[in-house]
């Protein structure tokens, strides 16, 4: 039956190229191959987000008067609504975690070295988009925590030098966080970001398919002249392993959604005092804590402004890592960039923990 359909399509579309690709594609087998799974995991979680996000759209209402109630309706009245909403929230968090792990594994293995610079750049842009998803999605239930976190978050954007005030109004749709902000964040979250990230994901995957998996330099160097790495067929061997990991992720999502559901909290009240313990999502905590620690004025520059400026520089640096790390490009060891990657992980872990502890 399947063969019949394939033949029918082949006669009309000539699938020989695709067939060849499927039959020939291999994944190198070596001691560091475990890192290859992180990209696939991130992709799976992204698919979960698209799927559950579309389902949530059926009942969600993006307005200040109805958003909270509609989420409440989803989790209390709609059959399995609690499951869909909690899987969406949990998957979002695991997605960011997987993307960060993917980023740092690629960083430490220097897989961005020539010829994979563009794969890295597209991946970095995807990570920023995912953070944008997280930031905009956090506001959508319109509860107290997300309302004030968005106030603070957009306020930080407001301290960007020069463009700050403009950015602030652009993000908020006015001077304050109101229903207008909710409309904007909603449009961003369900139309703008998905469109851009889908295109980028396709591009990212095309690059990976075109170039094959990168082999870490240490392993490449250990090969004797003329020796080739063992390859595992992508179909079905590697795919089945991928699917196995996806199964585990799915089980973890279901378990987390059932046993650790996300609190909806209290409806946002613009005229209420800020409740204690206001904080952004965990993946912004390190940044949040850094801003808290910077003194109000450093060398005559406003502390917050300085913080935002440095985050901007780090962002630009991260995007251009493959072009800055010339030693890796030329096939030499690059201890400086290894140290930078480790420092980056260390900073994120330590500051996230510090922010958690600081009440």
């Amino acid at each position: 039956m399947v063969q019949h359909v394939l033949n029918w399509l082949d006669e009309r579309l000539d699938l020989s190229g695709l067939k060849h690709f499927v039959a020939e594609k291999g994944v190198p087998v070596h001691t560091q191959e475990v890192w290859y799974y992180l990209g696939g995991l991130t992709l799976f979680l992204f698919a979960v987000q698209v799927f559950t996000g579309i389902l949530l759209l059926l009942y969600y209402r993006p307005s200040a008067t109805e958003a909270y109630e509609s989420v409440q309706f989803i989790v209390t009245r709609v059959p399995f609504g609690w499951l869909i909403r909690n899987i969406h929230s949990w998957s979002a968090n695991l997605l960011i975690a997987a993307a960060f792990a993917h980023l740092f594994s690629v960083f430490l293995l220097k897989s961005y070295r020539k010829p994979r610079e563009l794969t890295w750049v597209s991946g970095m842009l995807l990570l920023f988009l995912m953070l944008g998803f997280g930031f905009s999605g956090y506001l959508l239930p319109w509860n107290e925590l997300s309302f004030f976190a968005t106030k603070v978050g957009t306020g930080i954007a407001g301290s960007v030098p020069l463009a700050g005030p403009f950015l602030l109004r652009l993000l908020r749709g006015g001077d304050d966080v109101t229903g207008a902000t909710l409309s904007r964040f909603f449009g961003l979250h369900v139309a703008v970001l998905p469109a851009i990230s889908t295109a980028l994901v396709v591009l990212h995957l095309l690059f990976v398919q075109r170039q094959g998996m990168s082999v870490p330099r240490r392993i490449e160097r250990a090969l004797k002249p003329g020796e080739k790495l063992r390859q595992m067929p992508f179909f079905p061997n590697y795919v089945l392993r991928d699917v196995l990991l996806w199964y585990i992720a799915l089980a973890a999502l279901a378990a987390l959604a059932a046993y650790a559901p996300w609190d909806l909290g209290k409806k946002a009240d613009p005229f209420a005092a800020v409740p204690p313990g206001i904080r952004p999502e965990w993946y912004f905590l390190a940044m949040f804590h850094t801003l808290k620690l910077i003194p109000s004025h450093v060398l005559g520059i406003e502390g917050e402004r300085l913080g935002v400026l440095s985050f901007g520089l780090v962002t630009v640096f991260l995007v251009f890592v493959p072009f800055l790390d010339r030693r890796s490009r030329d096939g030499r060891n690059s201890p400086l960039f290894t140290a930078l990657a480790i420092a980056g992980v260390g900073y994120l872990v330590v500051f996230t923990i510090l922010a958690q502890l600081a009440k």
Partner: protein
Amino acid sequence: MTDPAGFPSTAAAGTFDRRRFLDALLTVGFVSTAASIAYPVARYLVPPESGEAATNSVVAGKASALKPNSGVIFPFGSRPAIVVRSSDGEFSAFSAVCTHLECTVQFKTDTSQIWCACHNGLYDLAGNVISGPPPRGLERFTVNLRGEPGAEDIVVSRKT
């Protein structure tokens, strides 16, 4: 013989049954996963019953505000209803949902009839169909006037 990943690539004699068994196991696994996703999704797609309690009684307005030979539409729960006052001052109220295709009907002053503009359905002031496509008359509600004389509320209730 094994392929590079260590998987048997050619089935030795006697392994065919094992492979078939494993294939069947995998299929059962995938199908049950698909089912356990499809079931909640299918249930989720069907909206729950409306959360609102059924409305049984509503104040449509002041009796003095409704002139003879006129009608006004008001919300009865989540659906529109119409209260009309005939030329001789009698009040009556109906569901304003046309029985044909659920358009909202209106009072026609020139003929003193209830009229649906969608497909030209006509009802008399007892809610019965006069002409047009509606299959049956409008649902009729009970009207009571309550309050101080001269300032009575029109209370419309569902017939029990």
